[in-house]
Each structure stands twice: as C-alpha cells, then as structure tokens.
C-alpha cells in the first residue's frame, strides 16, 4: 500500500515536473537563508556564514539529484525518451526504416489475415449457447463408402426414443423453394426443420414465435407456418412489423409467416432465409417408403462426452441392424462435433496456410533482425562512447530494444491495415465451402492479437542483435578503426540468412507441390466437355405442376425453345449436375442375377436427363443410342442408359445392351432395358474415381427441379438473359436460379487446392524477395567492411573474377546450408499436404530439386551485385578508406 501511494506521488511528480523543481529550489534556498542567518547571529561574517552553510549542506547537486530521483518515475520517463530517440533515428534512415517496416507489415499482415480466417473457422465457438455440446449424427455405411450419410427418418425416430445421451436430437434439410409475395417471386434457400431444432440451438425470435411440435407434425396438411431470417424480413418486407401473420406463397402453396430470427443467425448454411416445418410423423413407416434423406443434429447432455455418445449410438445401431436387417444391414452411426462437420474439409488447407504464414513471418523477422544487426553494428562506436560515459549495459540493451519494438509496432499497425484489406480479398478468393457455413469477422480480438504479435516479434528479433551489440568490449570498440563487425554478430547474421533461406525453400516446395496438383487437376478429363456450357436451375412448384405429365411437358418444351435460341447448339436438362457434390444414389438390381445379400447391394448414382443431354455435355456415347423424345413419355416402357464403369463393375462381361435392370428410386421400380452406354463422368471431384451411374429419362423419374444445360457457340453467360426470357415466356411466375458456366462448376471442385496454391505461391514469392534482400544486405555489408582487405588482395594481383568468386562463394555457403535445412524440413513436413495433393507424391523429387534451384538462382543474383562492386574496387581507393 505504501509503495502504491509512493508510485502515484511519483506519477504526479512526473506530470508536475517544473513545479516540483521550483519547489525544491525554494525549499533549499530558504534552508540556506535560515542557516546563514543563524550563523551570522553566532558572529560570523556574511561571507563566512554562507560558506559554512553550504559546506554543512553537503553536495548541493547530488542532493538535488537524489530528490529528483525520488520524485519521478524514472523508468517511464526514459522509456519515453528512448522511444522518441528511436523514432528520430528511424526517420534519419528512411531506407532502412521502410525496408524493415515493409518486411514486418508483410509478415504480420499475412499472418493476421490467415489467422483471422482460421480463428473464425477453427477456434472461435460457434454462435450457439454451449456450442461444444452440438453434434451432427450421421449414418455410416460400414462398407466404408461414407461415414457422413443422410439419415433415414425411421432411424432418426428410433434414435430419438432409444438414446439417453442427447438432451435433444433434431432433423433438418437444406433445399431451395420458390418464395413469392405475389408481387415478387424468387428462389430462396430454406431449411426445413423439426420443431425442436431452433430451440435446441438456443435461438429466440426477435418478432413472433417459432413453430410448435404440433404445427410441425401437421405440416403439409394446411397449417403451414414459416419462420424467416432477419435478412429476408429486411430485404422483402423492409422490416415491417406486419410481416408477421402475412400470407406468402412457398412453392405455390399458401404459408403464414409467424416469426423472425435475430440478425446474423444461421445454422449449417449461411444462405438460408426461411425455416419451414419438416413435417415428419413418427407414426409413418419410413423404412417402407423412403430412403435416407434427412440430416440430424443433436445436443449432448452436459455430462456426456462425445465418446460416450458414440458408444451408446453404436449399441443402438446394432440393435436396429438386427431388427431391420433388410434396411439397416451394414449401417452404423457416426457422431461428429458440429464444428468438424462444418469445417472438416477446409481444416487441412487452413492449417497448411497457417504454417505457411508462420514461415513467412519467420523470414520477415529474420530479415529485420538482420537489418537491425547491421545497423547496431554500425553504431557500435556510439554505444561504446555511451558505455564509457557511464551508461549501464542494461540501459544500452533497453535502448536498442526500444528501437526494435518501435519498428515492430509500426510494422504491426501497417500489418493490421494490410490484413483488414487482405481478409476481404481472401474471402472473395476463397472457395465457397470455406465461407459457406461459418461467418468470418475482423474484430478487436484480432487487433489485440496483432499488436501482441508485433510486440513479441519486436522483442524477439530485437533482443539478440541488441545483446550482441551491447556486449562488445568497450576498449576494442573504441579503438576499432576498421569497424569490422564482431565475430558473434557475423555468425548470427549468417545464421539468420540461412534461416530465411530455409523458410523460403519450405514455402517454395509446398507451393510447388500444390501448383503441380492444380496443373494436374486441370488436365484431368472430367468425362465431359465443360467449355461453352451454361447451366441454370428451374424448380417447378408441385401445386402448379401436380402431375408428371405437366412437368414433363414443361421441361420438354423449355428444352426445345432453348435449343432454338440463336447461339445455342443444343439444350437439355439433368436432375443433378456432376461434380457439384449433390446427387441421388440407390441400390440397383440386374435381372437374372440373384438378389444381393443385405449389405452387399449394388449402389449406383442416379441421374434423370432429357434427350440430348450427352451431346450437350460432350459425354461420349460408347454403345447403343441416346434417349429420344419418344422415350420421354410416362407410358413408354422403362429404358436406361448406364455408364462404362457400371458395365465394368456390375455386368462383368455381360452384353449390356438389352440387359434389364431396375433401381430403388420410387414406389414401383419395374425392370427396364439398357439402351445405351456412355462415358464415365467424375462425380464429386476430379481426384476420385467415377461412380457407376444409371440415367433415367425424365418422364420415368420426373423431378420437379431440373438443371438446364445449354451448349453455346460463344460466351455461355451472354445467353443467361435470353434463356431466362424463354423460361418466363412459358411460365411468367417461374424463377431461374444458380446460373453458372459448367467450367465454373468444374473449377469449384479444385478451388481448395487452387486457393491454397495461389496463397502459397504468393507467400513463397514474398519470402523469396525477403531472402534476396537479406542475402544482398549481408554481402553488401561484408564487402563494405572488407574494402581494405579486398583492396590489398587486388593490389597484390588478385583477378577481379577471383574477388567475385570470393564474395559470391561467401554468400552461397549460407544459401546452401539454408537450402539443405529447408529441404530436410520440407521433406519432413510435406506429408501434411498429402490429402490435398493429386497426381503427385508429397515427396516429388522434381519439386524438391526445383525449389532450392529457384532459390539459389535468386540468391546468385542477390549476391552478384555486391560481389561485382567488390571486384571493381580500385586498389588505391580501397586502401584509403577510413
């Protein structure tokens, strides 16, 4: 308490410095006057009285100094002095300051940008209360094809009644609907959900209410109620209170809006604008009528761990396998933390990028440390003089450290500004899956982290140079005419350059591997010709097109009209585009073959198409024929077209044409003849093998939502508007959604690799630049220091080329050591990239040869410039320096 009080006294003393000083002088003066008066009274002469008083007082200056010392905060004051001094010296050396601050801004800016994204996606809690309790519950196919399969509603209800590990479990599904207020109709993303989903997530509506369990189970019987997002409320209704209770059309049926959720609320997908009851009734026997098509999320009970939940669900799954072998044989359950489910795919790329920015930051720091060391070395004499005048070593270290911290902070602030901008750019560039399900913020937390980071880098890269510089022996430093750097400093600088080179080599290798992957992926044949194909989705609302025939007519007519547009060579439609990750798959049977045992069914991807689909998409027809308009009729017998891999895997040498197959897609699934075989098309991504595929003609599997594909003569997007007009010419209330080119769809599949490759390339370019600056700096400095030595060599007859070799060789030693270390580290770490690579091993010898070679070339150039200068030194001039 006492020392606390004294601290405040001192603090106030610091601010009232002038007053204090004056007061002290007054007090001393009055002291002397009283003493003199006393002395005179005891009989001294005026002069003697004054002399005696001063003598008795003791050293006046030292008394003043110790009073001053007591009366202020010395540390704070000198810190401020040091700081101002540091800024002054930095201003005097703009070249040095700009290089150092730019290096730091680059390193810190890039780290912060990547960290912001990683923090949001991987670290920050999801925006739900106790979000760590939230999990996704999947069905898992035990044949290993997928452990994130959609769930059968029947199994969902059984889980619900049998589990004791979840406080709640809810069903949901994302899809698109046509939302219309009469004046305006658009396709929007919605989430149909069981009534307990939103309460389980802990969200409360800001207007109105959520739907109840009764409303959920009565849904599709007329009591249709919807909860809308804040975004929809604002953009469609201008935030009008009367939106609650408003009647709207969803897929041409009347619905009532009953609630609005808070701004920014999302679950699973950020684009969802309305929540509708999913309408599952526990009483129905879903195993008879439906497959696996819902998603389920659950909340763990507070005292239950993920592992316990998984164990219990395994037991339940085994029980269900026994009870319903024909439906559940081979199906288990997978309980996965919600976050993993949301960001699972982007986790590896993000971690790789985090590693990469750390390396970049390392290079930047090493570079700045190097620059600082050079500078401090040049100021060794200044330091020595200060030391000789009595400055303590700690004081010198502190002053040098202040300089580097000033640099760090300035670089940090520049870095934050850079990062703010970079995060935006990053998100614009990022694959959709990266930002689809989690929001990314740039907030105070990040700013604080950035400042801490820059402070830390300031201390770390400043401490070693400061210690080394302040260590130097005063005597030698003062006498040191040649100003050659200390052995310690030179070694440290060498190591720093080697470290930079090592980091740069690691970055280059990583970038090389990923770039190779992207190049390989670009030349993978997806099985179709994606250039000049326009795609867009049209979803017909059931109520207006209740019958198969209505839908079939619409699509046939639309396809014909579209094909007649000028600039379109052919047009067709498909239920799900390949390579988009969506689709249907089911079990198929082949006539004449015994039914498969449970758990060993043949699974095929199912697409429904219009005639001309294969020609439009550029999928080669291998055998037989395409569907015709005549086939596209519900009254025609079922006919199928299959893919090559279907023939290869399931028909095992049988003549495919004429073989009769069926697929479990509908209520009744008659056998039909195979009339054609087409080329394989990659399904989910380019780096996976294609799935066996069965194509239906639309009339026999009449989806209400189809994706039109148009082969065009020129830029496909130029046909977007005419195509929309065609659709609305047939049905004026029919919106068109998701207009893309097929090329974009294909590119999206390797967006992740491309994104990482682009960033890594950027980072490695930056690190290459920094390393080059570092090498140049070290060599230029050592040439300047050895001017006299080089002069002597030249005077003694050394050839310029010899000098050149000497200097370059000096630099190359560092580069080679660094490259070797970098290569070894890259070799050890490249395994982490494995899941992102395609067509190339993580230890691809070419990449690991080229990366160091590129670096060595750059290093040679950086070393050549100072070396040339050295080789051209005129001996007389060189000998006269200093």
């Amino acid at each position, binding site marked *: 308490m*006492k020392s606390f*009080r*004294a601290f405040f*006294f*001192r603090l106030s003393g610091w601010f009232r410095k002038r007053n204090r000083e004056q*007061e*002290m002088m*007054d*007090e*001393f003066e*009055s*002291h002397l*006057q*009283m*003493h003199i*008066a*006393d002395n005179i009274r005891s009989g001294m002469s005026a002069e003697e009285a004054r002399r005696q008083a001063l003598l*008795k*007082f*003791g*050293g*006046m200056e*030292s*008394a003043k100094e*110790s*009073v001053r*010392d*007591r*009366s202020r905060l010395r540390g704070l004051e000198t810190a401020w002095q040091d700081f101002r001094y540091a800024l002054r010296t930095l201003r005097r050396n703009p070249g040095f300051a700009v290089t150092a601050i730019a290096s730091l801004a680059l390193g810190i800016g890039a780290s912060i940008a990547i960290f912001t994204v990683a923090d949001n996606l991987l670290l920050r809690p999801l925006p739900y209360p106790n979000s760590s309790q939230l999990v996704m519950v999947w069905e898992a196919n035990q044949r290993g094809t997928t452990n994130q399969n959609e769930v059968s509603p029947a199994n969902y209800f059984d889980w619900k009644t049998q589990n004791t590990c979840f406080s709640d479990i809810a069903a949901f599904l994302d899809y698109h609907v046509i939302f219309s207020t009469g004046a305006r109709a658009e396709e929007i993303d919605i989430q149909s959900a069981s009534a307990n989903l939103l309460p389980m997530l802990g969200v409360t509506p800001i207007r109105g209410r959520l739907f109840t369990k009764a409303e959920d189970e009565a849904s599709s019987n007329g009591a249709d109620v919807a909860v809308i997002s804040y975004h929809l409320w604002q953009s469609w209704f201008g935030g009008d209170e009367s939106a609650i209770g408003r009647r709207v059309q969803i897929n041409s049926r009347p619905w009532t809006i009953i609630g609005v959720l808070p701004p920014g609320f999302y679950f699973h997908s950020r684009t969802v604008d309305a929540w509708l009851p999913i309408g599952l009734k526990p009483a129905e026997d879903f195993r008879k009528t439906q497959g696996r098509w819902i998603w389920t999320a659950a909340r763990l009970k507070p005292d239950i761990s993920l592992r316990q939940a998984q164990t219990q669900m395994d037991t339940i799954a085994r029980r269900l396998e026994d009870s319903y072998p024909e439906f559940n044989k081979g199906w288990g359950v997978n309980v996965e933390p919600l976050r993993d489910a949301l960001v699972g795919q982007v986790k590896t790329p993000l971690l790789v990028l985090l590693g990469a920015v750390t390396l970049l930051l390392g290079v930047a720091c090493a570079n700045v440390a190097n620059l600082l060391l050079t500078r401090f070395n040049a100021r060794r004499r200044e330091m020595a003089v200060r030391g000789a005048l009595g400055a303590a070593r700690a004081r010198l270290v502190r002053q040098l450290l202040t300089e580097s911290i000033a640099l760090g902070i300035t670089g940090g602030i520049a870095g934050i500004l850079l990062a703010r901008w970079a995060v935006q750019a990053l998100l614009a560039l990022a694959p959709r899956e990266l930002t689809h399900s989690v929001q990314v913020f740039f907030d105070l937390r990040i700013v604080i982290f950035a400042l801490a980071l820059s402070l830390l880098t300031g201390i770390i890269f400043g401490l070693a140079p400061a210690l080394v510089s302040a260590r130097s022996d005063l005597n030698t430093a003062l006498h040191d005419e040649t100003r050659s750097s200390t052995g310690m400093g030179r070694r440290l600088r060498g190591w720093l350059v080697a470290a930079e080179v090592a980091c740069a080599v690691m970055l280059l290798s990583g970038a090389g591997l990923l770039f190779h992957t992207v190049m390989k992926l670009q030349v993978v044949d997806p099985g179709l010709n994606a250039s000049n194909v326009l795609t867009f989705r049209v979803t017909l609302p059931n109520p207006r097109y209740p019958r198969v025939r209505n839908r079939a007519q619409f699509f046939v007519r639309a396809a014909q009209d579209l094909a007649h547009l000028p600039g379109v060579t052919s047009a067709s439609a498909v239920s799900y585009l390949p390579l988009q990750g969506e689709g249907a798959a089911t079990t198929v049977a082949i006539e004449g073959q015994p039914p498969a045992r449970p758990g060993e069914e043949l699974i095929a991807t199912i697409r429904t198409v219009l005639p001309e689909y294969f020609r439009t998409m550029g999928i080669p027809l291998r055998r037989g024929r395409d569907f015709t308009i005549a086939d596209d009729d519900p009254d025609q017998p079922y006919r199928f077209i299959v893919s090559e891999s279907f023939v290869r895997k399931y028909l095992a040498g049988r003549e495919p044409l004429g073989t009769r197959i069926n697929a479990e897609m509908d209520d009744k699934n008659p056998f039909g003849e195979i009339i054609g075989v087409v080329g394989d098309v990659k399904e989910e991504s380019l780096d996976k093998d294609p799935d066996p595929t069965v194509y239906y003609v639309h009339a026999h599997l009449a989806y209400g939502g189809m994706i039109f594909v148009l082969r065009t003569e020129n830029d496909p997007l130029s046909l977007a508007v005419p195509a929309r007009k065609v659709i609305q010419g047939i049905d004026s209330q029919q919106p068109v959604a998701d207009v893309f080119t097929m090329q974009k769809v294909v590119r999206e599949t390797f967006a992740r690799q491309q994104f990482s490759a682009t960033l890594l390339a950027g980072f490695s370019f930056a690190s290459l630049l920094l390393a080059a600056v570092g090498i140049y700096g070290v060599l230029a400095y050592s040439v300047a220091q050895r001017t006299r030595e080089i002069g002597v060599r030249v005077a003694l007859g050394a050839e310029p080329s010899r000098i050149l070799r000497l200097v370059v060789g000096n630099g190359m030693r560092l580069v080679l050591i660094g490259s070797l270390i970098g290569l070894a580290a890259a070799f050890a770490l490249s395994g982490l990239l494995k899941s992102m690579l395609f067509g190339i091993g993580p230890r691809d010898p070419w990449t690991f040869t080229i990366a160091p070679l590129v670096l060595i070339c750059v290093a040679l150039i950086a070393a050549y410039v100072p070396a040339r200068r050295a080789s051209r030194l005129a001996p007389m001039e060189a000998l006269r320096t200093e």
Partner: protein
Amino acid sequence: MNDPQKKTDVWQGTLALMILRTLESMGPLHGYGIARRIEQVSGDRLVLNYGTIYPALLKLEQEGSISSQWGISDNNRKAKYYRLTRAGAKQLRKETQEWEQATEILARFLAPREQSS
C-alpha cells in the same frame, strides 16, 4: 571509546526514525530545523550533511508518514513545514518498538560479562 568528541555518521535507515521522532516532540518544523534538532539531541555527536535530509523527507511524505505545507518561520521567512500524520505516528510507534527490541537484543550480546565470571 567513549570519546565525546568522536563524531558518528548517521546509520543507514535511522534518519527516518529520527525525523519522525523529532516531528513528534517538536510539532510542525521545517527541514533546517529538523536537521539542527537532530544534531542537538545527539549532543552534536552526530554529523549530518543537511542536504541528505531532503530526500528522506520526500520519501516519508510519499509514504504518507508526514505532510508538508509552506509557512512563515520565526524570523519571518518562507519555509516548508513538515508535520507528522496519523499514519506517521503509528509508524513511529512501531519502529520505536522494533528498534528498542533490536538494541536490547544487541545489548545482551555485547554487555554481559557476569556469565563467564
């Protein structure tokens, strides 16, 4: 040993105690007065550089044991007067006690001859 002319330097740490004690017995006093008083009480056996009293006064003031105020001295001079605060009085009592204890212990070590005889 007991030469009255022999002058002693102020021991480290005792100056504060002497200042507090002086202020207690004399009431508010300026720095010069305190210094003179300390010398007088010691029977002029204590040598004090008057300048050293001021850092000590400042320290005590910062710790809250004394407070200061400008005033007019006996012979009409402006002087800064120091006064003992309540906390200072408490501090003095505590330190006096400690000091007495310490000297008593030391005295026991140094004085007795009777045990060995």
